[in-house]
């Protein structure tokens, strides 16, 4: 493996501002970040509710979401594929092989991560806050935003875990997106394609770019979290 070749390929791709690369990067970011936002809109409140609620079968729900964190991407992709296929129940939406399909698949994949990790964070917080919030007259629904906001510094890590999973994922987007050039080709599916073509230097170069992007997003979250934490404790 020619490591130097990969680094110089990555470097050349970046400095040349290769339009195909830019398009792939922007699609990757769009798909991943949209899926992350959807997963957070669903997962944060659901995770918090699961942390606070006591009902028969709660243990089973907790175990289920924990297990779904390990959902293999290809399985998530296959399920979404079968749902969105023309022969499937949602075929009329004509979403298969579109970026929307990839967003749905990634949302399916990372929502359980957000739910489970949020539940774990909020459970601890709720143990500390429950008496006080109930004393103030807070309903459980009203407590959800309070707890999410107060858990924000821990929840940043939760969200980053979801982001990492989505950024790194290839199996699901490949199946439901189809890796169509210029349309549903993302960083990871492009890496898979270049590997298949035996252009390992280009594949690794793309990998380096992807890793750099992930690093930048994480660093941004880390720094802004630090700043906010210093201001709000």
């Amino acid at each position, binding site marked *: 493996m020619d490591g130097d070749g990969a680094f110089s390929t990555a470097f050349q791709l970046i400095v040349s501002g290769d339009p195909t690369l830019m398009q792939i990067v922007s699609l990757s970011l769009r798909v991943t970040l949209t899926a992350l936002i959807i997963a957070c809109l669903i997962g944060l409140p659901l995770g918090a509710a699961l942390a606070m609620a006591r009902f028969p079968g709660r243990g089973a729900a907790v175990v289920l979401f924990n297990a779904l964190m390990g959902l293999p991407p290809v399985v998530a992709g296959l399920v979404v594929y079968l749902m969105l296929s023309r022969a499937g129940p949602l075929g009329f939406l004509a979403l298969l092989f579109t970026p929307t399909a990839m967003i749905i698949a990634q949302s399916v994949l990372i929502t359980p991560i957000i739910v489970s990790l949020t539940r774990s964070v909020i459970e601890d917080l709720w143990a500390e806050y429950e008496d006080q919030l109930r004393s*103030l007259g807070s309903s459980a629904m009203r407590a959800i935003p309070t707890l999410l906001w107060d858990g924000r510094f821990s929840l940043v890590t939760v969200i980053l875990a979801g982001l990492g999973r989505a950024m790194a994922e290839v199996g699901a987007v490949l199946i439901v997106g189809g890796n169509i050039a210029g349309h549903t080709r993302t960083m990871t599916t492009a890496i898979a394609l270049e590997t298949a073509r035996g252009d390992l230097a280009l594949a690794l170069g793309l990998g380096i770019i992807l890793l750099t992007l992930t690093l930048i997003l994480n660093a941004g979250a880390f720094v802004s979290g630090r700043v906010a934490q210093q201001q709000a*404790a």
Partner: protein
Amino acid sequence: MTMHGTLSILPLKVSELRFAARGTELIKGISFSLGAGTRTVIMGPNGAGKSLTLRLCHGLLKPSGGIVGWAGPDASGAVKRHAMVFQRPVMLRRTARANLIHALSVAGVPRTDRKARADAALDYFGLTDLAERPARLLSGGEQQRLAIARAWALKPQVLFLDEPTSALDPAATKAIEEMIETIHADGVKIVMTTHDLGQARRLADDVLFLHNGRLLEQSPAETFFAEPKTEEARAFIRGELLW
């Protein structure tokens, strides 16, 4: 009537109150009545059920038997007219002022009024300097003062305090006691637990003495300290019972 102008939720009539957890009865059928105006101190050794009694009255726990009866035509709405301060204050991860604003928001105070009422409460207790400080970075004493200001901002008719100074140094304890005096002077009913005999002597108008889940005495403070009726109370006052 109180300073807040609504119908009084007092007297609080508690009858045959029972509470059991995991098969063990911790409150064994106690009855008492709390009238307006006085400072009631609930005393007793550790495990007597003081804190449980406060929580049952405040509605944080559901009795396994008996009645917590608030007065007034709208007794079910009474929950919003009593507030509680805990032994260890729980402050949200935001500024001192934002903590008060959150409490007011939960209590249904219109958005436009919240900041003014929060600032008024901080000002009333001389806490204005802390308004912008992250609440969880304040000292224990400051946090407890903030917790009391937060409770006061809700304009309760009854303020429950559960061992409010047990984790504090003497200076902070004094500040808290002064706040309690101020709030009492405003016409708010004070119901607090303490294991600090000195504090009880300083603050109590009347005393509920609990022991082992039972109410052994309810009497005016003077009477209780001068002539305790039960052997347990005498031992407690002599400091012979574990707290």
